[in-house]
């Protein structure tokens, strides 16, 4: 067989495999959207679910998902940034540092159901936070944090050495160099990564079953006192998120339209995660252009 034929065959195989993956993905997305989009309406997105009657919505679940995401990010971003900066700029290159790096890698690949059970034992029971948004946020932090650390570290490592040296050569301290030159340059990478991590949090279910819980109290959306048990803003109340809700109505839903609700909620979830991804790409490109702009 001549080199040319071999090359042609290899190209055909690679293109075939790529096309297959794209088809599977498109089919999956198309199927979810096709089944669910028809069910999405303003009423569906804003009203409370029904247990046995038709016409329930996903309002509280949607709110819970967003609120949990915000809580998780509030915990993850500062710790992740700090650890990432340490790993990239301060940690000496020795065995302890590579040990930490290994642990971070392992932590990010722990199955989420295991994180959930760990959360149940430690956060919910031992620390006594109960089934609550806060417990859920802590559990999500466990596997969001490694991602955040790695993103920050990669972002900072990607800053050209010349830029860093230029700042240090002006007599600026390491910290000032990091905050005023390196972080702005690394920002597009960090931001894109953060949004992608956020998308993952949004779709997570297994880690939340035993931490944030599978039920919501009757939320009163006129009560904005974060200490009241019925206020949507109370971080110490149980909260069923969208992904958990889909799982629940699929497995034990009693409402006659449970299948449609699950389909609609799935579509909402997929659309939201897609929006996160596109937002990340767009923002990353926008910031890259802004920083290197030729005006």
């Amino acid at each position, binding site marked *: 067989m001549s080199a040319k034929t071999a090359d042609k065959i290899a190209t055909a195989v690679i293109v075939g495999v790529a096309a297959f993956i794209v088809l599977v993905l498109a089919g999956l997305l198309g199927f979810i959207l096709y089944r669910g989009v028809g069910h999405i309406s303003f009423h569906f997105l804003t009203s409370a679910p029904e247990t046995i009657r038709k016409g329930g919505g996903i309002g509280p679940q949607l709110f819970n998902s967003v609120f949990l995401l915000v809580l998780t990010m509030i915990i993850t971003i500062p710790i992740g940034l700090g650890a990432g900066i340490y790993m990239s700029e301060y940690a000496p290159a020795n065995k302890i540092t590579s040990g930490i790096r290994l642990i971070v890698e392992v932590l990010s690949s722990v199955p989420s159901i295991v994180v959930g059970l760990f959360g149940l034992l430690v956060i919910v029971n031992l620390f006594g936070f109960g089934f609550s948004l806060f417990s859920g946020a802590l559990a999500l932090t466990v596997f969001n944090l490694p991602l955040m650390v790695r993103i920050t570290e990669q972002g900072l490592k990607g800053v050209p050495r*010349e830029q860093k040296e230029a700042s240090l050569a002006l007599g*600026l301290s390491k910290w000032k160099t990091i905050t005023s030159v390196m972080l702005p340059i690394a920002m597009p990478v960090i931001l894109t990564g953060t949004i992608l991590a956020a998308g993952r949090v949004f779709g997570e279910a297994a880690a939340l079953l035993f931490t944030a819980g599978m039920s919501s109290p009757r939320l009163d959306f006129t009560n904005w006192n974060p200490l009241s048990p019925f206020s949507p803003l109370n971080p110490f109340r149980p909260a069923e998120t969208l992904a958990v809700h889909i799982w629940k109505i699929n497995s034990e839903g009693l409402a006659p339209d449970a299948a449609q609700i699950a389909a609609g909620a799935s579509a909402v979830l997929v659309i939201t995660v897609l929006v996160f991804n596109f937002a990340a790409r767009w923002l990353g490109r926008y910031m890259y252009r802004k920083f290197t*702009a030729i005006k």
Partner: protein
Amino acid sequence: MNSLIEINDLDLFYGDFHALKHVNLEIPEKAITAFIGPSGCGKSTLLRTFNRMNDMIAGTRIEGKVEIAGTDIYSKEVDVETLRKRVGMVFQQPNPFPKSIYDNVAYGPRLHGISDRKKLDEIVETSLRSAALWNEVKDHLKRSAYSISGGQQQRLCIARALAVEPDILLMDEATSALDPISTLKIEELAQELKDRYTIVMVTHNMHQAARVSQQTVFFLNGEVVEYSETEQLFSNPTDQRTEDYISGRFG
């Protein structure tokens, strides 16, 4: 001429590699001193000891003394940041920050604590004038530093270094990435600046050293082979190796 930098018996190691060997040198104040020699001869390494940029490389070890204006810059009392303010540096590649032209120059002074707008404007203008760039950029200081040519970017980097008011300016092959016309402009600029600053330049280009500097140091394998006034070194070298190098027989 008074010497501003004095190097006594300096040895520098990168791990096991002996990069500088028993260097003794005096660098005169308010003049241009050129370091020449083939790649890997230690000229950039020595330059980077003057603002302690070698500190960042793990496994670097130094023996001997580097004194600037009588102070041993490797002694414990010396604050590296204060030292680097006094010893500015221009790098091989133009490396402006991804900020506006104005912010590039104002960056150093601002982070060293100057926040008064008028004072900053003044520093930016003076620095850009000193770097012979003011007339070319004064109407678009808010534009990105990447919008100007490579040669202009390098002069912007010089302006940025001058903005923190150093006494010494280190130029690490500052023209090697530039075209001949931009190179000539930087050389002319260096000539003007030498009345106010002590300039040490590392160069690959012997003709540049001959054109621009007053003193020339020839390095080989981490050692100073010959050090004298530029004219003397190029017209009448005392060491055979220097003669071989400047006549193009190696390197």
